[in-house]
């Protein structure tokens, strides 16, 4: 249990997808104009991460890793190493999950679907999502619960980041920012400053 809490807290604050790795920046910058849409986007990312990481964990451990196939198909497969396929397999899982999320959101919240626009299908190529799966591969979790908690935690961290920057962007909407920096420029600067503040968690040992 303590291990799970550790992983969760770590993936939210210490290994924050946006401020520690600067992953998932495209939708982070694209959909963060208002708080309400960014909340929708954030939940979609949490959902996708919470599903794809455990599925990819299973794929990794029962199909892709060296010798993993032997667990299912017997000893004759124990020399086979399919890990070169991991990128394409992970992406395939992610893309299909995003399709699912898209259909769900379109059905239940057409307004949100409209405001997320192109960025919803683009979750499929959101590097935070693929990044979480690849970090999962690196971190060698001992069971699927840990992988799920890691996925959810990364999602929550990303959610916090996008909601916070959306609130800041709403606040500075009428600020007298130098013309050259309006829009994306100032958002990059804010993200950097937020990164400094999030440095407070770097180095925490749990």
């Amino acid at each position: 249990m303590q291990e799970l809490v550790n992983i969760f807290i770590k993936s939210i604050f210490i290994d924050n997808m946006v401020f520690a790795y600067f992953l998932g920046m495209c939708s982070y910058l694209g959909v963060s104009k208002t708080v309400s849409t960014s909340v929708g986007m954030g939940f979609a990312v949490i959902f996708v991460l919470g599903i794809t990481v455990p599925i990819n964990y299973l794929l990794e451990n029962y199909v892709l890793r060296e010798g993993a196939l032997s667990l299912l198909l017997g000893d004759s497969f124990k020399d086979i190493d399919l890990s070169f396929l991991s990128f394409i397999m992970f992406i395939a899982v992610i893309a299909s999950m995003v399709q699912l999320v898209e259909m769900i959101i379109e059905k239940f919240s057409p307004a949100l679907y409209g405001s997320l626009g192109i960025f919803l299908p683009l979750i499929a190529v959101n590097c935070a999502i693929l990044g979480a799966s690849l970090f999962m591969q690196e971190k060698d979790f001992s069971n699927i619960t840990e992988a799920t908690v890691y996925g959810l935690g990364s999602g929550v961290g990303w959610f916090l980041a996008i909601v916070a920057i959306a609130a800041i962007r709403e606040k500075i909407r009428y600020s007298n920012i130098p013309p050259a920096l309006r829009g994306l420029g100032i958002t990059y600067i804010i993200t950097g400053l937020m990164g400094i503040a999030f440095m407070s968690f770097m180095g925490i040992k749990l």
Partner: protein
Amino acid sequence: MKVFRNLLDGIKPNFEKGGKLEKLYPAYDAFETFLFVPDHTTNEGTHIKDAIDLKRTMFMVIVALIPCVLFGMWNVGYQYSIASGESMTFIQQFNFGFWKFLPLIIVSYAVGLAVEFAFAVLRGHQVNEGYLVTGMLIPLTMPIDVPLWMLAISVIFAVVIGKEVFGGTGMNILNPALTARAFLFFAYPSWMSGDKVWVQNASVDGYSGATILGDLASSMNWQSLSGQWSISDMFFGTIPGSVGETSMVAIILGALILLFTGVGSWRIILSTFLGGYFMAYLFNLWGYNELMSTPAHIHLMIGSFAFGAVFMATDPVTASQTNKGKYIYGFLIGVFAILIRTFNPAYPEGMMLAILLMNIFAPLIDHYIVQANVNKRLKRATV
């Protein structure tokens, strides 16, 4: 005063539209309004009429900082006399600190105001007095030994990236003074932490000038430390640390001035202390490492907790704007400050980063407080 008025009136035509120095009008305007109450009024829209304006507000904060500045100067000399073993009179100690601290203030103001004026002239906006406070806070949060060029760089970073790119005073999202300190802290860590920087010339004779927090973080026992520093040392502030942060007495004096004039928000100060006490008390019960088993009331007195709560967290621009939000904002600052202190071995002091972190989330807190209010009223209207 009449001399100034005449002088200003004499050179005014040069700066007005069509004059030779038309472009420098913001600079002229800054000096004129600094010395005299401006007499122009707005002629459109509705405005609240009040005797206090930005300049007067900022000036009150400077007044509130004076006890900290004076005490800090004396403490610099006092710590030096302990470290070097030189016997110095009270006046000598103050003098020593005064001449050490003065360059920091001069550099901070000169560099910061130069950047500020440059931006005002370039962009044609007014020079705002926000920097008067920031320029005083920055040296107060620095170790006394910080090289002046580092101070200058951090001031430039704070004013340009922390404030001017957002459009100047009142628009920034992070407290500029803390931005400067965080910049130095991450860019030149060896000058901003450890046991050599807090006391002038401490490195010369191997005297350990570590702050109390630094000692605790290196797992020194709380009991053995309380032999070295008594509680009254911490309360009066005769301990090593950043220039302005050590004395509770000076900070409380400053806090009273801020609260009495209504410039600082009592909600934020109160809830920050509550949050810090709550978290430290929880950790006392847990008692996992030395910092955790340090008594909660001591936690509030050491390091920059009190200084940050009174002068940094209450910054009206970067704090939560709503009253309910202020409670949440302050409470979380206290909680995070103690959390970072105890859990993060890399940073013995968590106050700076806790305030920066909550500065980031303040707009979000406000958003949801306002939204909740809107929803409540909508419900009342439609039933």
